[in-house]
């Protein structure tokens, strides 16, 4: 017979939006990482980024409200942001301005969206939210890549629309979950605006 068959962990119904910050250190507990080869360390990080990117693209991310991105890292958003910036500035007349805009919109934008949620008394961890918002631009990065390959206006519109729907679908649930009932829309609107800004940059590039 099992030792504790019926023990049920406490569930806080009132505050289920409470998320504690959990970095990547937590997942490595109990494993000695000091004497492993560097390649292994890098590969593990790359694998974790790859897993999260895959997660964002799956509809599962919408259903469980971004919980798979709970162990945050900022490498993924950085890579995505750089990739998007390079793609958009490739054919632009004002290449450095385009790259700078992408960089500022992604980082300052996700920061402000998170601070906004904090000020609305959302129970949210800063870096986790920045991580979720950053990873969720992945569909838009794919849309940017596709429209770079096939430079036809109406195809671009289709790609960006799909990418935008996917990105907002994956992230809006995460944000609305953590906000008080009467101000969900106030927290979700900036998330929407954040992806509108990125989608617009891709569309006119």
């Amino acid at each position, binding site marked *: *017979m*099992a*030792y*504790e*068959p*019926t*023990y*049920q962990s*406490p*569930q*806080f*119904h*009132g*505050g289920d939006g409470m998320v*504690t*910050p959990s970095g990547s250190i937590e997942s490595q507990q109990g494993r000695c990482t000091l004497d492993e080869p560097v390649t292994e360390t890098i590969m593990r990080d790359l694998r974790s980024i790859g897993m999260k990117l895959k997660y964002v693209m799956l509809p599962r991310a919408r259903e469980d409200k971004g919980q798979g991105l709970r162990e945050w890292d900022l490498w993924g958003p950085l890579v995505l942001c750089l990739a998007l910036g390079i793609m958009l500035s490739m054919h*632009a*007349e*004002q290449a450095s*301005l*385009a790259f700078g*805009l992408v960089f500022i919109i992604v980082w300052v934008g996700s920061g402000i969206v998170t601070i*906004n949620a*904090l*000020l*609305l*008394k*959302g*129970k*949210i*961890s*800063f870096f986790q939210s920045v991580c979720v918002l950053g990873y969720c631009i992945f569909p838009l990065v794919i849309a940017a890549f596709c429209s770079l390959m096939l*430079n*036809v*206006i109406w195809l671009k519109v289709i790609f960006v629309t799909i990418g935008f729907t996917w990105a907002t679908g994956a992230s809006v649930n995460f944000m609305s979950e953590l906000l*008080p009932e*009467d*101000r*969900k*829309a*106030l927290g979700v*609107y*900036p998330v929407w*605006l954040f992806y*509108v*800004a990125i989608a*617009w940059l891709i569309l*006119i*590039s």
Partner: protein
Amino acid sequence: MALPPNWERYTTEDGKEYFHNAALNKTQWERPSCDEVPLASLNTSDVFTYKPSAADLEVPRSTAKSQELDDLFMGVAASEPTELVSLKEGPGDELSSSGRSTNSALPKASLPTLQGAGGGLGFAAGFAAGAAAASAASGGDGQGSAPTFSSWLLLLAQSLFDVSTDDVVRRLKLLVPYPAQDRSTAEELRTRPDFYGPFWVATTAVLFLAATGNFARLIESPHPSLFKADYSLVPLAASLVYGGLIAVPILARVSVFFTDEEVANIDFKKIICVCGYGLAPSIPVSILCIIPVGFLRWLFVLGGLALSLYFIKGNLLEDISVKVRWLQLTLIAAPVILQVLVFFIYRVRFFAGDRD
């Protein structure tokens, strides 16, 4: 069958079951009976359900630290008389004073007011949620350290973002002159200005002005596939809108400095709030301006400007009652000039035909 609250069923290593009550620190072999437990709590007895109680709210309040923080807040409020007034009126103050004088539990009936934080500035409610958020914001040093400047800043900012979705929607509706304006909402805007609306209206305006300018050029360009985006419209729109929103209260403050008028007579928060909401018509106008007809664009821009100025007239001008005549003119002119600048620079500078 469900166990009474606080009771847990355990099994020993040889399979015998026993029961433990964490609250009473009592262990027994017999299954505890549910007789003395009220029926309502039976359904939820297996799972600990969080029910907000007065005791929870007492915790942060009873510590000396939050008392100190509270005093700090009161000190700030006292230097700004408008805030003090709304504090006195709000239900939050009533609660916090009762919480301070008697350390007993608050009547449960008053809790919804506290949770909703509908009236006043709701500082008391801000403390319960704000303390949690403050510790989350400061990177997880949640050991309840002394009130730092950043947590104070967060609480102050939270009081400025203390609006619900309904509030913001109603305030935006004030911009539409027909059907007739809701006086209570206008009054609320006067006593409880928020910064959520101005900030996000301004941000949306920046994005839409720059985006629609580029789309209009894309539509008008003879070879759409050769079109090159003009990214410099974003910094231009941003400096115009954000710069204007910052400049208007600074200008007001400086001009007050040169007169012997009491600073307390002017509510700078409200000036920013009304200016920010006043920018909202530029968003639909910018979308309409994608239509590539120069005459229609002027029509839309002037229409939007009229809406903005009407809103400022209705919600700001009536309140400015200062003795010095030129100060009054400055305070009135600054927001008006901001709106005119935004709309006209948009029309003249953002579209392809007018560029060269």
